[in-house]
């Protein structure tokens, strides 16, 4: 193999696929990146068998071929290359690969491309497209609510489904539920899959070109995302996602309209003195005032007061400040509604004038 490419394209390609490289050394070849000439592009592939990422970058192909190069070294090397024409030459006999730039070069021992597992060929049972910015926005508003604890796998993923022709994404770690709806059309109504949170995070990282479309193809246990020059294959999480509709409260006893920015800042300050671990902050809403307080016995206490607009009963409730702030940070409206049904019932955050995002947060029982 012999190709010529620009440093920027090479760095870009390596960085896109690098996150799929296996961190566990179960199969040595999986710690590498497969590079292969295809027409006048170079295709880079990495996988840890849970997720696979493929990316094509424009190159000048002088001689066709393929090789697997160690991802860690390849990543470190290409990032430090000078901004010049880069030549990659592989000896297809022993897979020794030279990366040449100007008068200098690296020589890396590669592995045979044939040993690299093929990404599964996803033949669409179902497929549809969605605007990249729309989909990535959904991911950003929802995926943080997935659980990091692999104890109950269902909760490490987000549900992607269709309700009345709208695309719905929901995630929960049992302490909060994030729900996002996107108005799309032409989506197959049979869709109902749980996608690992990690895969969704990767999508939002690598397919962030606003104008592109993302095409999704779904099989029984895998999902393929295709964007401009990039594709990502992820396994799906098996199981039944809990009935999130059932837990969304229908009404409220107290409804508060709060300036998002003010609430974020007050909650962030109060969180500084929230006890480690559960990060409890207390909210008290009385007339048109919201008081946020926290207390760490050894250090001291914090008290914040902001003006709000309350409809309904006065109330006191305690939340984990992280759970509250996570959602406030992805809500992009100037004001939010906080709907409450008593100190031990879930609270609901909604952007003002936007029915498409609902965030349910479970309180902390304080004695």
């Amino acid at each position, binding site marked *: 193999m012999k190709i010529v490419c620009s440093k920027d394209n090479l760095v870009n390609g390596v960085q896109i696929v690098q996150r799929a490289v296996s961190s566990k050394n179960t199969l040595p070849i999986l710690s590498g990146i497969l590079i292969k000439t295809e027409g006048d592009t170079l295709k880079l592939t990495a996988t840890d068998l849970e997720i696979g990422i493929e990316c094509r970058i424009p190159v000048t192909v002088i001689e066709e071929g393929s090789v697997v190069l160690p991802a860690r070294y390849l990543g470190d090397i290409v990032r430090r290359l000078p901004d010049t024409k880069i030549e990659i030459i592989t000896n297809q006999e022993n897979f020794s690969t030279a990366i040449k730039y100007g008068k200098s070069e690296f020589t890396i021992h590669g592995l045979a491309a044939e040993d690299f597992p093929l990404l599964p060929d996803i033949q669409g049972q179902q497929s549809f497209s969605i605007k990249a910015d729309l989909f990535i926005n959904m991911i950003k508003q929802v995926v943080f609510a997935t659980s990091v*604890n*692999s*104890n109950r796998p269902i*909760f490490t993923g987000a549900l992607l489904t269709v309700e009345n022709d709208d695309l719905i994404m929901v995630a*929960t770690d*049992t*302490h909060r*539920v994030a729900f996002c709806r996107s108005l799309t059309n032409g989506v197959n109504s049979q869709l109902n899959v749980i996608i690992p949170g990690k895969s969704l995070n990767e999508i939002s990282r690598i397919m962030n070109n606003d104008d592109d479309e993302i095409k999704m193809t779904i099989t029984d246990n895998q999902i393929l995302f295709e964007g401009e020059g990039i594709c990502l294959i992820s396994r799906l999480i098996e199981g039944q996602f*809990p009935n999130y509709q059932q*837990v969304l409260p229908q009404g409220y006893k107290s409804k508060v309209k709060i300036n998002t920015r003010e609430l974020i800042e007050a909650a962030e300050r109060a969180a500084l003195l929230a006890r480690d*671990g*559960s990060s*409890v902050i207390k909210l008290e809403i009385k007339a048109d005032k919201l008081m946020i307080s926290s207390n760490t016995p050894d250090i001291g206490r914090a008290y914040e007061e902001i003006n709000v607009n309350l409809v309904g009963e006065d109330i006191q409730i*305690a939340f*984990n400040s992280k759970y509250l702030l996570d959602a406030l940070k992805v809500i992009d409206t100037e004001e939010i509604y906080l709907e409450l049904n008593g100190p*031990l019932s*879930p609270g609901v955050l909604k952007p003002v004038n936007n029915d498409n995002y609902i965030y349910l947060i*479970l*309180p*902390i*029982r*304080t*004695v």
Partner: protein
Amino acid sequence: MCYNNYRKHQFEGVVKKTMAENSLRRIIHIDMDAFYAAVEQRDNPQLRGKPVIIGGRTDSRGVVSTASYEARRYGVRSAMPMAQAYRLCPQGIYLPGDHRKYRAVSGQIGAIYREYTPLVEPLALDEAFLDVTGCEKLFGTAEEIGRKMKERISKEVGLTASVGVAHNKFLAKLASDIKKPNGFVIVGPEEVREFLSGLPVGRLWGVGEKTAALLQGWGIKNIGQVARLPMEVLEEKLGAWGRQLYFLARGIDDRPVIPDHQVKSVGHETTFDLDVQDKELLLTTLLDLTLEVGRRLRKKGLVGRTVTLKLRYSDFKTITRAATLEEATDLDNRIYYTAAELLEREDTGQAVRLLGVTVSKLCSGDEGQISLFNQGREKEEKLTGAVDGILDKFGDGAITRARLLK
């Protein structure tokens, strides 16, 4: 040489500085006199003035947990095998002890301490360190506080305590111990050298039989002699620990009084009266131990991820086997099934002498964080909570597993 001199200077600087700072602290150590035995004597006048020994059965492998002062006259000591105690004092009154009662009394005493300072570090049910630095304006000097507490324990609880007052934990504990029972000893900063010099090296915190024997080998018997040893010698012979010894021998101890001692693990173990080979009996005992561990975890509001099984075989070979759970727990069943699986995996061809289970890698529970979609666990939590409630209300044994019925 130069370097050593420099180091010596540096250390002397540290010594002087630490002494100055430490003499500002006011630490009280309170140790209840023959606590368990005293509680029994208090509650049963017929036991007063008689040798009372609390511990396991005399025909078993149990040890003495407390001996009244009357019993100590016969040579009975804590941690002595019960059989030996019985030989020394056959006329003694042997009781199994009622830990629930002792815990309650201990709580009553702890409440008195906390009226004077929040800095209370309980070491056991019967002893605690208190830091009363800065309480003078409120309650008087450390000496006055110590006397008041001693008096109140006597009046309100009906028990005697020995009290030591000094400027650090090491000295305070020594002071409380020196005139037991019903003692009250103050060690002022100026009296430290005199107070320590004649005491045997075994009184130094952390010096056990081994180190004592080692020091005796060098002809060193009392603390005064240790205090004359240069730091370099102690460090060379005993490593980093020698350095601690250097400071302790001079009455220097920086350890703070830490309220609510942080628990690293919660465990329970038992030694069988007769070695056991029957797996079913081992599992039954394991369940019994697990219920105790689970209950203690829940009382402390802790959850743990690692379950450790401990087995000592009849030849005294001791093994531990651990498993880590995906999710921290305080539920009896989860701990039991994990420990039972570890036990099943062991080849118990040999009879077992001791069985224990411990939960570690602790963290505080969710502290009231409410969850959704937890039906399975919620049910188990509710069940466990209900059982705990019954036990709290009606006492241990009010409800138990069918398997544990005798």
